[in-house]
C-alpha cells in the first residue's frame, strides 16, 4: 500500500493486511478471540470497501486513479471517514478496545502499530486535499474519548487501546498542516507502544492486579516501564514530549491556539491512567497502594 500510486493497488494492500492478521487474532480459538476477529473483520472490510468507493467516485468525476490527485470533495470526505474507521479514530473507535482485548499481546502490538501504518500513509499522500475541519473534530473527539474511556479500565490491553486512540487524535490533528510531523508522531508512538507492549508481554500481565505483583519477576524492566509510560504520556524530558511540542507549535503557527490548548488539556486525562499504571507497577508495593514505598533490594 505504501509504495502504490494507483488506488486499486492501495486497496489490495489494505485487504491483504486485513486478511493476514485475522488468523493471528484468532489463533487461540478462544470465544473472545473469535469474537474479536469477527468484529475486526467486519469493520476493516467495510472500511476497505469505502476506500474503494471513494476512489471510484473520484475516478468518475475527475478521470484520475492516482493517489495524490484525489480532488473531488465528497470523495475526500468518504476517504477520511473510511481511514478513520481503519485507524480507530473517534467516532469510529468502538471496535478497537474490544478487538485489542480479545487478541494476544504480541498480535495486539501488531494491530496497534503495524496495521496503522498503511492508512496513515494514505492520509499522508492525500493530505493536501483533505478537509481540516473534519480531521480536527475527529482528533479532538479521539483525544477526549481516549482519555475519558480509559479512566475506569483495569485490563491493560484496553488501556493501551485507549492510549492508541488518543495518540491517533494527535496525529490526525496535524496531518493537513504538516504531514511530516504526523509521521514523526507515528514513528515515535510506534516505538513507545512497542516498548510498552513487549514489556507487558514479557511480564505476561493482562490485568492491573497482575501488574502490581510483576515487579518481582524483572525489577529493572518494571522500572523501565515507568519511563516508557511517562514517555507515552508526553512528559518533558522524555521522547514522547517531542511530537506533542512540535504539534502545538505548528498549530499555533496556523492560528489554531485554542485547538492546541484543548487537545493538550485532554491528554491530561490519559496522563492519569498512565500514572496509575506506573504507580501500580513501579512505585508502590502491593497490596498496599498508598503508604508503603518500595524498597529496592539490590543484593
Amino acid at each position, binding site marked *: 500500500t505504501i509504495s502504490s500510486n494507483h488506488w486499486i493497488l492501495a486497496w489490495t494492500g489494505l485487504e491483504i493486511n486485513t*486478511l493476514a492478521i485475522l488468523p493471528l487474532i484468532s489463533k487461540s480459538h478462544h470465544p*473472545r478471540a473469535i469474537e474479536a476477529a*469477527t468484529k475486526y473483520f467486519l469493520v476493516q472490510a467495510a472500511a476497505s470497501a469505502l476506500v474503494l468507493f471513494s476512489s471510484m467516485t473520484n475516478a468518475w468525476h475527475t478521470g484520475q486513479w492516482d493517489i495524490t490527485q484525489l480532488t473531488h470533495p465528497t470523495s475526500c470526505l468518504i476517504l477520511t471517514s473510511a481511514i478513520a474507521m481503519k485507524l480507530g479514530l473517534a467516532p469510529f473507535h468502538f471496535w478497537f478496545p474490544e478487538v485489542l482485548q480479545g487478541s494476544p499481546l504480541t498480535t495486539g502490538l501488531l494491530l496497534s502499530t503495524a496495521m496503522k501504518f498503511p492508512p496513515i500513509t494514505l492520509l499522508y499522500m492525500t493530505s493536501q486535499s483533505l478537509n481540516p475541519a473534519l480531521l480536527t473534530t475527529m482528533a479532538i473527539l479521539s483525544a477526549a474519548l481516549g482519555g475519558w474511556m480509559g479512566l475506569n479500565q483495569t485490563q491493560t490491553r484496553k488501556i493501551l487501546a485507549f492510549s492508541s486512540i488518543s495518540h491517533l487524535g494527535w496525529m490526525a490533528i496535524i496531518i493537513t498542516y504538516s504531514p511530516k510531523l504526523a509521521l514523526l508522531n507515528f514513528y515515535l508512538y510506534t516505538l513507545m507502544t512497542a516498548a510498552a507492549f513487549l514489556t507487558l508481554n514479557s511480564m505476561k500481565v493482562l490485568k492491573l492486579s497482575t501488574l502490581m505483583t510483576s515487579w518481582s519477576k524483572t525489577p529493572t524492566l518494571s522500572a523501565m516501564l515507568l519511563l516508557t509510560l511517562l514517555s507515552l504520556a508526553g512528559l518533558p524530558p522524555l521522547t514522547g514530549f517531542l511530537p506533542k511540542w512540535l504539534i502545538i507549535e505548528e498549530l499555533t503557527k496556523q492560528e489554531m491556539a485554542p485547538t492546541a490548548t484543548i487537545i493538550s488539556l485532554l491528554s491530561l486525562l490519559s496522563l492519569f491512567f498512565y500514572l496509575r499504571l506506573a504507580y501500580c507497577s513501579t512505585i508502590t508495593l502491593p497490596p498496599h497502594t498508598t503508604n508503603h514505598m518500595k524498597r529496592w533490594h539490590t543484593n
Partner: protein
Amino acid sequence: MTYLHLSFLSAFTLSSLGLAFHRTHLISALLCLESMMLSMYIALAMWPIQTQTTSPTLLPVLMLTFSACEAGTGLALLVASTRTHGSDHLHNFNLLQC
C-alpha cells in the same frame, strides 16, 4: 451525473446502510458486504466502457479476486463464531464489553 453513476452509487449506499443497520444475524452483514463488492465490480467493469480505453479492463477481475478471498474469510469467521458462540446472533457477541 449519469444514470449509470447514480445507479451504482445508490446500490453501494444501500448496501452500506444495510451493513450498518443489520440487526440479528452475522450472515446478513456478510451478505451486505458482498453486495457492496458487487456494486464496485459493476462500476469498475463499466469504467473502460465509459472512457473507451482498454487498459483498466484487468481491474474488475483483480477486485473480484480479493473480494472473493474476503468473502471466504468472512464465512470462515462465521463458522468459527458459530462453533464458539452457538449461533450467529449478534446479541451474543458481548464477551468483550468494557
